[in-house]
């Protein structure tokens, strides 16, 4: 691979000569400029460095999905190996009529929307608080990052046993310490299973949103803001008509990235409720159908449904990402 590249490099005409003769001249997009200036090399020597990564990703992410698609049309349960065969749309019919699957779809959407939404709002508020000069700002920023750096399984264990436990968890312990022996001692997870998972996830994802949003706030052109302030604009006016539009791309970026990870969440559901109490999301549901029930056909059908759903959402998300990418020039 590297020998291809070096050959192409050696075969390159002198840069300056080509530059003057570049057909389209200088364009604002830097990459277009690069493309025209370095255009002479053969297509394949250009593609060669890309191929290992591309092939690797295709083999390991696309092929399994094709296989999943095939299995989804099969009647295949590892506990009944003799009954393996073609099943047509049976698995899909079962997936769509099964109330567990519908609940898993609903839980997945609810979990993602709640976690990403709450984390974004909290992350934005805290980023605004940290976008000021004050004593110990570096320390507060470090404290804020801490939750994101706890391994997710460890975080879920921590919330389940050290915080939520009705007998000796920190939440009920604090209630008792503050309000005395008559304090209410709720069973947090049993009473609000989904909210318990959401809270633990928000705790981990707020720092993520905060970090990206804070970086966005700090890239604001401050002189313009100051000029608006001198002209008598209120803080709220500045936030709404100057800060928010500037922050749009950062909000979309952090929301998109957060959603990619939260949709796939398995660790928290697995650890905190083991998918019980109506909290099984699609990743957990598929894990259970395939790993515990060994119903390969049905798990694959559910997997295909997830992929189709994700493609629908991801197309919208990718379009957003792409428009962000284009808005900023560069992309051609």
């Amino acid at each position, binding site marked *: 691979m590297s020998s291809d590249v070096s050959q192409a490099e050696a075969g390159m005409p002198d840069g300056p000569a080509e530059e003057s003769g570049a057909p389209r001249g200088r364009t604002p997009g830097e990459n277009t400029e690069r493309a025209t200036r370095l255009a002479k090399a053969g297509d394949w020597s250009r593609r060669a460095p890309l191929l290992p990564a591309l092939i690797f990703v295709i083999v390991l992410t696309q092929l399994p999905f094709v296989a999943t698609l095939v299995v989804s049309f099969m009647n295949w349960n590892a506990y009944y190996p003799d009954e393996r065969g073609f099943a047509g749309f049976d698995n899909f019919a079962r997936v769509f009529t099964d109330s567990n699957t519908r609940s898993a779809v609903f839980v997945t959407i609810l979990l993602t929307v709640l976690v990403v939404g709450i984390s974004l709002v909290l992350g934005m508020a805290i980023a605004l608080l940290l976008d000021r000069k004050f004593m110990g700002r570096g320390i507060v920023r470090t404290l804020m990052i801490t939750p994101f750096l706890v391994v997710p399984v460890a975080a879920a264990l921590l919330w389940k046993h*050290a915080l939520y436990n009705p007998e000796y968890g920190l939440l009920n312990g604090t209630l008792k310490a503050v309000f005395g022996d008559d304090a209410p001692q709720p069973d947090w997870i049993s009473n609000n299973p989904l909210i318990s998972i959401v809270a633990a996830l928000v705790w981990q994802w707020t720092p993520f949103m905060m970090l990206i949003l804070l970086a966005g706030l700090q890239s604001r052109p401050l002189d313009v803001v100051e000029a608006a302030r001198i002209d008598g604009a209120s803080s709220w006016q500045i936030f709404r008509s100057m800060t928010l539009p500037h922050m749009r791309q950062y909000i979309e970026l952090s929301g998109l990235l957060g959603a990619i990870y939260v949709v796939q969440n398995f660790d928290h559901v697995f650890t905190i409720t083991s998918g019980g109490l109506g909290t099984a999301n699609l990743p957990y549901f598929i894990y259970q159908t395939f790993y515990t029930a060994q119903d390969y056909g049905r798990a694959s059908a559910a997997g295909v449904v997830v992929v189709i759903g994700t493609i629908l959402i*991801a197309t919208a998300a990718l379009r957003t990402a792409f428009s962000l990418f284009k808005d900023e020039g560069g992309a051609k």
Partner: protein
Amino acid sequence: MSATTDRTFEDGAEVADPNREPQAINHHKSPKSHILLTLAAWLCGLLFALPVAWMILTSFHKEEDAATNPPSLFAPLSLDGYRSFFDAGPWPPLANSLTASVVSTILVLLLAFPAAYALSIRPVKKWTDVLFFFLSTKMLPIVAGILPIYLFAQKVNLLDNIWLLIILYTSMNLPIAVWMLRSFLAEVPVEMLEAAQVDGASLMTTLRKVIAPVVMPGIAAAALICFIFSWNELLLARVLTGTVAGTAPVFLTGFVTSQGLFLAKVCAASFVVSLPVLAAGFAAQDKLVQGLSMGAVK
């Protein structure tokens, strides 16, 4: 995200610097509201760090002091939690996690660097399509492909083999690394590359002298993120490994089945397993932002 965006963010060196110059915005604010906002910021920071502080404190308590209500803040410290964690045999899983994370991170960088080069310095046709293809693979849930991977691994005897995880973690993190490295490589000045070619510099020299200085921060950020995501991964490790190649997160999930009091032990275990990520993340806070935003924020 793109060359022009990158330029807009060029003063992003400050982004990571908590001690940035005082902002003009604060001037008109009364001292009172300044103090209130400062207090609010500190309160948020402390609240978010509190569960971790509680985890660390509990890990140093004896089991009977860890599980009291109201909580015993000032109970005598003890290393019992750590003792029972290390007695449970955590070294093989920790070593597996380290192997999987480090080797897959190296593989990711080796594959991502040439790809990022082909998407920025000497871009292939339709390079944006390729870039977005990489991103789209991140959106397909791992769980939807896990069954064929499992069946394949079973057939070729790769179940419970650390190399299976290494390969899968590499494919999981490769798209992120390609995006990040591309956004850094897009900043390499073409003029310098051309000058190097005119001077007859070899590819290796060009890589070392012209490209590496601009891209090293990107490589560091990509490595940090790939390491963290591999170290944290649970679903694949749980399904595809067993007693031999099990990683630290899998070990953690099997830790609570015991009867009796286990809170101090669990907190000690959670802290030890999180320690590498905490250390790496604190040491490289600015790289963390770059990595999490896939290079869009510098």
